[in-house]
């Protein structure tokens, strides 16, 4: 609800002559492959974002704009600062300096939850499904503006039953779309890695976001599920949402993204459409600098394997 109103309010002011602005994918045509290039209809604008850990500059982004209504991929070698940048955009970490705007509103001093309510919802590299809640309860948790989540109303079920039923219906629709409907009564902890990714994505949609941020949606997902996940990501764009995702899987990047942003050593070194960006000298240098004599695609396979193994280890420990 809140997100929609913001959109309604900001769009006209941002673009008084909306007919002239090249929205969505159209807006990306003919843009220069330069880092920080201005987009005709940006949903997110980051300026001068810096974050240091100890003496190390993890993220140092001068300027970056994300076009509304398209799928943007964020790639880069390991340790490039992609996830940190993600955390900074979504309020899970605060930059030492610089600011970012969402729909023209500054996100300075805004909490992660507030940013999520504004319509910028993320998933996590290591999925954060709530394993001791059922799949359906996980989904219900995602709904915003719940009356029953207020303390006093919580005690009086008749106040929130109706809304809960409506949320449940929406949740079931989404679960059906993500083919998780058969599992709605199971504990989320019993799902496979890929199913968790799907659940997390479906749960994020319960928030009714404008911008969905996916942190490595393919990591640890078995190949059979990958195609359907790709389809789901694409369908988000068809539904009018903007998608920003971090990924190591170059096939996925090539397959579904409209625009690719490349980070290395904390900086955005290049951006552009997927077909031309892979051959950009700066991108090749960045990857070669990180891993000598490795072909990009091969490197990605290794990275994915490593990530998957790391995740497996993590799951074993838990």
């Amino acid at each position, binding site marked *: 609800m809140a997100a929609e109103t913001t959109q309604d309010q900001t769009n006209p002011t941002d673009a008084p002559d909306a007919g002239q602005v090249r929205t969505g994918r159209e807006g990306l045509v003919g843009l220069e492959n330069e880092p920080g290039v201005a987009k005709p209809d940006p949903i997110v604008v980051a300026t001068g974002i810096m974050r240091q850990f100890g003496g190390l500059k993890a993220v140092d982004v001068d300027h970056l704009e994300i076009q509304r209504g398209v799928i943007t991929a964020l790639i880069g070698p390991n340790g490039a600062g992609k996830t940190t940048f993600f955390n900074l955009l979504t309020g899970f970490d605060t930059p030492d300096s610089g600011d970012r705007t969402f729909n023209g509103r500054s996100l300075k001093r805004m909490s992660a939850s507030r940013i*999520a309510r504004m319509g910028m919802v993320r998933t996590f590299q290591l999925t954060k499904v709530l394993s001791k809640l059922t799949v359906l309860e996980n989904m219900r948790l995602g709904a915003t503006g719940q009356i029953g989540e207020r303390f006093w109303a919580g*005690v009086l079920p008749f106040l*929130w039953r109706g809304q*809960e039923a409506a949320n449940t219906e929406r949740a079931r629709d989404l679960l059906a779309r993500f083919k998780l409907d058969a599992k709605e009564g199971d504990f989320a902890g019993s799902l496979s890695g890929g199913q968790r990714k799907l659940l997390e994505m479906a749960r994020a949609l319960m928030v009714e976001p404008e911008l969905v941020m996916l942190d490595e949606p393919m990591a640890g997902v078995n190949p059979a599920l990958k195609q359907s996940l790709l389809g789901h990501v694409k369908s988000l764009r068809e539904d009018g949402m903007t998608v920003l995702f971090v990924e190591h899987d170059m096939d996925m990047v090539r397959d579904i993204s409209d625009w690719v942003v490349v980070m290395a050593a904390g900086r955005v070194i290049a951006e552009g459409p997927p077909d031309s960006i892979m051959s950009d000298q700066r991108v090749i240098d960045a990857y070669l600098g990180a891993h000598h004599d490795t072909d990009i695609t091969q490197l990605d396979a290794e990275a994915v394997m490593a990530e998957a193994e790391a995740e497996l280890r993590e799951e074993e420990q838990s």
Partner: protein
Amino acid sequence: MDLLTIPLHDAFAPLAVSFVLAAMGLNIHYGYTGLLNFGQAAFAAVGAYAMGVAIASFDVPFIPAVILGVLFSVLLALLMGIPTLRLRADYLAIVTIAVAEVLRLFFTTTNKDYFHARDGVSGFTSGFRNANPYSEGMLGFSRNDLWVMTVGWLLVAFFCLLTWLLVRSPWGRVLKSIREDEDAVRSLGKNVYYYKLQALILGGVIGAFGGFVGALGLASVQPDSYNLDFTFIAFTMLILGGAARVLSPVVGAVLFWGLLSFLQTLLSKLIGEWGVIPDSILNSEQIGNVRFMVVGLSLMLLMIYRPQGIFGDKKELAIDGR
């Protein structure tokens, strides 16, 4: 025979009710939200002192005095929660344990005209006792005790119902989710900090009611009733019953309080009447220490071997240990 009757008696007495309520508050904190409050005694103390001093020194009527006690416990929750609830779980634990100790020092050493140091506050029960419908005592309880117990157990029932309703509501769903993974909840647009603060306040207020019942039962409020022992006994009771179940603190508290009373009776008999244990190993002063050593050991062993409590099923372990 005393070995059975005394513990049974004690397990339902006013003091036990006060621990039941304290443990129920901790259940909201730790059981449902994952907050580590090691200073539940502070909530009980602040509630009891506010009520006691308001009546004894300022002639406030009983009900407004209770409301005052509740307000003070809310203030205390804000004082401890605001600086810590954005941080790691340890910080709340550190601050609560510290505040509880400092408050005890404060009640012991300052404002002696109102707090009366170690002697404590007394002379605040008449308003409550005048409403006593019982004309005589029974089952070994005095008529005052019976009245305190009636009100106390009704409070327990009320808070059980409240907890039951809350944990089944979307509000409770948010709490349980916070316990499992704060960041996930945050990413869905919920203000985690705000919910944690609400949980801290609710559990603290229930703890304050524990303070009221204890104070009315003893007819006095003494600083040493609210030392760390109070909190840790309540914690052990909660873990024994199995956290994150509505009735577990009740069952755990009655059982554990009965057990402690049994141990007290048994040890007194062993060194006194029966003379089995010589005075050089255990004298009557040391019985308390031995009982509390058992509390500490029980808490450790429960947490290591049965974190889900005696009735819990490990598979659907409600509390994630990590």
